[in-house]
C-alpha cells in the first residue's frame, strides 16, 4: 500500500479540518483528491507528507511513517506556491535539493523531463509562475520517488501552462509512478486520474474510478408531483441514486431515468413529470456542496 490512512482526524483548535478519513492507495494508481476549498484536501496531504500529525488516527506511507518515507526519497511533493529561493538559479536550486538526498537522478535529466532545460541558468526570481511550477516538479523528480504528491499544482496557471504541466506529469506517470493530486477542478480530476476521491467537510463522500464518477454524473433528475410518495419504495427502484421529497414534489436522481419515469407514470398517480440531465458540474456540486444531503445518499453507491 503506497498510502494508508486509518480513521484520521485533524483539528485546529475548534476547527475540524479532517473528520475520520480512511483511504488506501495502491502502488501505480493515479488518484485525484477532489473537493472545494476547505474540504480538507491540503490538510490530508500535509499529513501524508509528514508536515503535520493527525489529531487521531494513523497515517503510513509504504508501511512507514511519512517523515521516514520522505527521508528515504520515497515521496516527493509539488506544493501550490512558494518554496523557492529567488537568489538561486534553476540549476542551483536542483543542486541544493539533490545534495540532501542519498541517490538522485542527474540534474540535466530532471530539467529535461520537466521541460525547463533552456532556463537552467536563470535566476528563480526571474522565472514565470509556470516555469517555477515546473521547477518544483523537477525538484520532486530528483529522488525518483515512488509516490508523487501534487497539491493543486496548476493553481494560477493559464490554460496553456496547465496543459503543458499535465502533459509532463502524464508522461512521467506512464512509467508506473504513483500519483496523488489535490484539485478543485473537476475536469482535471476527470482527465488525469484513474480514481477520484471526493472530499467534503473533511470526510470522504465518494471514492471510485473516474468512470464511476462519470456514470454518476451522467444520471438524470426525474421530478414529479406525487402526494404521499414513499421514499423507500422509490429508492428501491433500479438505478436510483437518491430520492428527495419536497412537499408533494419528488426529486429522484437516477442513472436509469426511463425506468423511473415508466414506473411513476404507470404504477403511481404521479403527474407533471420532468426529466432533466445532470451535468458533471452539478454532480460535483451535489456531492460536495453545502446543506445538501444527497452526498450521504450517494456515498453507498460508489463505495
Amino acid at each position, binding site marked *: *500500500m503506497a498510502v494508508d490512512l486509518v480513521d484520521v482526524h485533524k483539528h485546529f483548535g475548534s476547527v475540524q479540518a479532517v473528520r475520520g478519513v480512511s483511504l488506501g492507495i*495502491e*502502488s*501505480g*494508481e*493515479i488518484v485525484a483528491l477532489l473537493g472545494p476549498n476547505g474540504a480538507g484536501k491540503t490538510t490530508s496531504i*500535509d499529513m501524508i*507528507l*509528514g*508536515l*503535520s500529525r493527525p489529531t487521531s488516527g494513523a497515517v503510513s506511507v*509504504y*508501511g*512507514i511513517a511519512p517523515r*521516514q518515507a*520522505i*527521508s*528515504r*526519497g*520515497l515521496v*516527493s*511533493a509539488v*506544493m501550490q*506556491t*512558494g*518554496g*523557492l*529561493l*529567488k*537568489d*538561486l538559479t534553476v540549476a*542551483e536550486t536542483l*543542486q*541544493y*535539493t*539533490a*545534495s*540532501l*538526498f*542519498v*541517490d538522485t537522478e542527474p540534474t540535466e535529466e530532471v530539467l529535461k523531463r520537466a521541460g525547463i532545460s533552456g532556463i537552467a541558468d536563470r535566476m528563480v526570481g526571474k522565472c514565470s509562475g509556470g516555469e517555477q511550477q515546473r521547477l518544483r516538479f523537477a*525538484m520532486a523528480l530528483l529522488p525518483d520517488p*515512488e509516490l508523487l504528491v501534487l497539491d493543486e499544482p496548476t493553481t494560477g496557471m493559464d490554460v496553456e501552462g496547465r496543459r503543458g504541466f499535465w502533459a509532463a506529469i*502524464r508522461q512521467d*506517470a*506512464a512509467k*508506473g509512478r504513483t500519483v496523488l493530486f489535490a484539485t478543485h477542478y473537476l475536469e482535471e480530476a476527470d*482527465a*488525469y*486520474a*484513474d480514481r477520484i476521491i471526493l472530499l467534503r467537510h473533511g470526510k470522504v463522500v465518494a471514492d471510485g474510478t473516474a468512470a464511476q464518477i462519470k456514470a454518476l454524473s451522467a444520471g438524470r433528475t426525474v421530478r414529479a408531483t406525487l402526494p404521499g410518495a414513499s421514499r423507500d419504495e422509490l429508492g428501491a427502484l433500479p438505478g436510483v441514486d437518491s430520492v428527495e421529497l419536497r412537499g408533494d414534489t419528488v426529486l429522484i436522481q437516477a442513472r436509469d431515468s426511463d425506468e423511473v419515469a415508466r414506473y411513476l407514470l404507470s404504477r403511481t398517480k404521479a403527474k407533471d413529470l420532468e426529466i432533466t440531465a445532470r451535468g458533471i458540474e452539478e454532480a460535483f456540486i451535489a456531492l460536495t456542496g453545502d446543506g445538501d444531503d444527497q452526498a450521504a445518499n450517494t456515498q453507498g453507491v460508489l463505495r
Partner: protein
Amino acid sequence: MSSSVNPVAPDISQRRAPGLGGFNLTALGLEIRRFTRNRRTIIFALIVPIALFLLVGLNNKYVNQTDGEGNVSAFIMISISLYGAVLSTTAGGAMVSIERAAGWSRQLRLTPLSPAAYIVIKLLAAMVLGMVSVAAVFIIGSVTGKPVMPTGIWIASGLSVWVGSLVFAAFGLFLGYLLPTENVMQFLGLIVGLLGFAGGLFVPISQFPSVIQTIAKCTPLYGLNQLVHAPLLNQGVDWTWAVNVVIWLAIFAAGAIWRFRLDTGRV
C-alpha cells in the same frame, strides 16, 4: 490517463536516508554563494567595516599613539572587525526570515534534511561570512601598514573576533525566527549599532555615567568587546567578560531553538 495498478509493492529496502541529517558541503557552498548575491550582506560584511576602518583607523594620531602591545590604530581595527563580524553573522543567521517568508524552510521539510542539520548549515554559512569580514578588515589593515602589533596578537585578535561572533550568528537565527518577514534585515544595522554603542565598541563606556556603565556591562557586546582586545592590551582577562559572552550565547541559542520549534511545529 491510463496506468495499470502494480500489485507488487516496490522494494524500498534499497532506499536510504542520508547521514548527518542531510548536512553536506554542496548546500553550504550554495548558501555562501547566496550571500554574494545579497546586497545587504555584502554591505554589512565588507563595505561598512572596510570604509569605517579607512575613515577612522588611518589617522596619524592613532598610528603614533601606543596602546598595549601595539598602537591605537590596531585597537580600532580590532573594534571595527568585531563590528563587521557581528553585522555579518547576525545578517547571515537572520536570512532564515527570508527563507521562512519564501516557504523554503517548508520545502526543505519535504527533503531528508533534518532541522538540526539545517541550523548547522545556517550557522556555518554565517560564520564563513563573519570570517570573510574579519579577514577583509585585517588584510586592509596590514596593507595600509598603519595598525602595529606583534604577529601573534594579529592572529589571536582575529581568531577571538571570529569565534566570538558565533554568539551573534545565534542572535541572527533568533531574530530570523522571531520576526515574521524580510523586514528583519532592515533593522539589523540599527540593532547591532545600538548593541555596539552600549557594549563600548565606538566610545569607551567609562565615559558614561556610572549607572549607565553598569547597565552597559550587561549588554551582549560588552564582554566580547573586552575579550577581543585583551591580547593587544595585555592587562589580563576579567572572568565577568566570559560570563557575559556565555550567558548571551545561551540566551540567543535558547531563543533560536524555542522559536525554531514553534516554527516547525506549526503548519
